[in-house]
C-alpha cells in the first residue's frame, strides 16, 4: 500500500510538470493559433541552461531563476524574428518552421553539450528524503510538486486576475475583436510566446535533477505536451491540470510494475480517453 502511495506521489510530481508544459503550449497554441513543435526544444534548453548555470555559479536557486528566463528570451526572439512573419501562412508552413527550429535547437544542444546524456544533482538542501509516515520520499520531488503547483497557480492568477491575463484569454477567444478594441495583437503574441517558452523552460529546469539531461528529452516532452492539450483543451487551465495529473499518475503506476511500458502508457491513456470522449476530457473543441 505504501509503495502504491509513493507511486501516486511520483505521478503527481511528474503530472504537475506535464501540466506546466501543457499549459505553456496551450497558451502559445491558443493565442497565436500555430502548431508549436519547438515547445519541447525550449523545455530541453531550460534543463541544459539550469545544469550549466548551476555548475558555473554553484548556486541552484540562481540557476533556477536564470534558466527559464533564457528560454523565455529565446522564445521572444523566435516569435519576433520568425513566427511573426508567418501568421498569414498556413499551418503546414508554421509547422515546418517550428519543427525546423526544434531540429536546430536539439542539434545545437548536441554541439554545445555533447550527444551523451548526463545527470544533474539537486541542491544539497534538497538531497535525500523525508519520512512521510507511510513512505520515505525524496525531498526534491516534494519540492517539484510544490514549485510546479505554485507556478500553475501563479499562471492561473495571472490569466484570471490581471488585465494582461484577461487580454490573453480574450486573444484565445477572438483575435479580431481584441485588435478592434485597440490592443496591439503583435505585442500580445510576442508576450504569449515568451510566457509559454518561460513555462517550458522552467518545467525543463525542474525536471533536470529528476530525469537527467539528454538531447532527446525535448521531443519526448513535446509529445506529452500535445497529449495534455489534446485531452485538456486549448486555453483550459483546469483541463491541463487534470490531463497532466491523469497521465502522470497512470504512467507512475504502470512504470512501477512494467518499466518498458512507461512511455507507451501516456499515449495509450490518451487513445483510450479519445475512444470514449473524442472531444477530450472537458469537451472543448
Amino acid at each position, binding site marked *: 500500500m505504501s509503495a502504491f502511495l509513493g507511486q501516486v506521489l511520483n505521478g503527481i510530481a511528474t503530472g504537475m510538470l506535464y501540466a506546466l508544459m501543457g499549459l505553456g503550449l496551450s497558451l502559445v497554441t491558443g493565442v497565436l493559433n500555430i*502548431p508549436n513543435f519547438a515547445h519541447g526544444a525550449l523545455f530541453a534548453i531550460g534543463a541544459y541552461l539550469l545544469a550549466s548555470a548551476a555548475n558555473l555559479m554553484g548556486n541552484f536557486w540562481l540557476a533556477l531563476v536564470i534558466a527559464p528566463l533564457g528560454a523565455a528570451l529565446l522564445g521572444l526572439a523566435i516569435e519576433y524574428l520568425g513566427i511573426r512573419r508567418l501568421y498569414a501562412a498556413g*499551418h503546414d508552413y508554421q509547422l*515546418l518552421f517550428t519543427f*525546423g527550429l526544434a531540429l536546430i535547437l536539439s542539434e545545437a544542444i548536441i554541439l554545445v553539450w555533447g550527444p551523451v546524456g548526463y545527470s544533474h544533482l539537486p541542491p544539497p538542501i534538497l538531497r535525500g528524503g523525508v519520512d512521510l509516515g507511510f513512505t520515505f520520499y525524496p525531498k526534491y520531488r516534494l519540492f517539484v510538486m510544490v514549485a510546479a503547483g505554485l507556478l500553475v497557480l501563479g499562471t492561473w492568477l495571472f490569466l484570471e486576475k490581471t488585465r494582461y491575463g484577461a487580454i490573453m484569454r480574450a486573444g484565445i477567444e477572438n483575435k479580431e475583436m481584441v485588435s478592434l478594441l485597440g490592443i496591439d495583437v503583435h505585442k500580445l503574441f510576442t508576450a504569449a510566446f515568451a510566457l509559454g517558452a518561460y513555462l517550458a523552460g522552467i518545467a525543463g529546469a525542474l525536471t533536470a535533477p529528476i530525469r537527467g539531461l539528454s538531447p532527446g528529452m525535448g521531443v519526448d516532452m513535446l509529445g506529452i505536451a*500535445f497529449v495534455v492539450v489534446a485531452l485538456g483543451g486549448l486555453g483550459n487551465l483546469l483541463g491541463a491540470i487534470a490531463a497532466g495529473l491523469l497521465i502522470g499518475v497512470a504512467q507512475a503506476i504502470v512504470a512501477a510494475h512494467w518499466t518498458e511500458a512507461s512511455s*507507451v502508457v501516456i499515449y495509450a491513456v490518451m487513445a483510450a480517453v*479519445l475512444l470514449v470522449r473524442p472531444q477530450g476530457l472537458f469537451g472543448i*473543441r
Partner: protein
Amino acid sequence: MNRALIAILAAIVLLPLVVRPAIASEIWIFAIFGLGVNLLLGYTGLLSFGQGTFFGSAAYVAGWLLKHYAINVFFALGIGVGVGALSALVVGYLCVQRSGLYFIMLTFALNQLFYFVAYQWTSVTGGEDGMPGIPRPAILGIDFGNPVAYYVFVSVLFLASLWIMRRIVESPLGKILQAIRENEVRAEAVGYDTARFKLAAFVIGGAFSGLAGVLYAMLFGIVPLEAIGFVTSGNVVFATLIGGSGSLYGPVIGSFVFIWLSESVSTLWARWPLLLGVAFVIVVLFFRGGVVEAWSRFAAWRERKWRSSKQTG
C-alpha cells in the same frame, strides 16, 4: 501522354546514370510515400504529422514476415499495404473527429505511441538497433539482389501508384475530398459525411505509406527505428511542401530534391539534421511556394534582367 509524364519517364531512365541505384530507388519510394501524404495535405487539406506510423508499421510487419517466414515479394507488398491502411484506420478514427491544430497534435502523439512500442519491443523490432537482415527474394527468376533489377521493380510500382493516385483524385471521391478542403462546412451542409471521407483519405494515404515502407525495408535490408519516428513523418511533409502540395506531381519533385540533397549531405556531416532544420526555416521564410514557385520567380527575374539589358543595350 502529357509533358509531366514524359519528364518522369525520362527521369526514371536517366536517374540511375547520375546516382547510385539505391538512391535512385529511394527517390521513387519516397515519392510513393509523398503521393499518399499529398492526398491528405494537398487534396483534403489535412495536415498529418504522423505518416511515419504507417510507413514504419508496414516496414516492421512485412520485414518480420520476409525475414522469418520467407514470404513472396508480392505477398509482402500486400501485407505492407494492408498494415498501412489498417494502422491508418485506427489512428485516423481517433484523429478525424478533431480538426485543425488538434488534428496535427493527435497525429504526432499517436505517432509517438507507435514509436515507443517499436522502441521497447526489442525482441521483434530490435529497438534502437533496428530490424536487420530483411531479404529481397527473387520472383519469376529475377534476382532482386541486383540493385538495377530492384530499381526497375520500384519504378514500375511508382508509375502504378502515380496512375492509381491520379484516378483517385479525378474520381468523385477525389472531388469530394477537394470540396472538404475548400469548405468543410459547406461540404457537410450539402450532405456529405465529411468525417467518413476524411477517414477514407487517411486510409488511402496509409496504404501508400505502407507500400513505400515495405519497399524501403527491402531496399536497405533493415528497418531502422527512425523509420517509424517523427523525423520520417516530418521529412515526408517537408518533401511534399517543397515540391508544392498543389499538384499531383509536387511530391514527386519534392522527394527528388529532398532525397538527393539528404543523401549527398548526410554522409558529409553527422549533424546533418541541423542543416535540415536551417533548410526548413529558410524555405518557410523565403520560398514558401516550394521549388516550383522558386523556379518561376527565378525565371521572372531572368526575364526582367534580359529585358533591361536589351533596353540599355
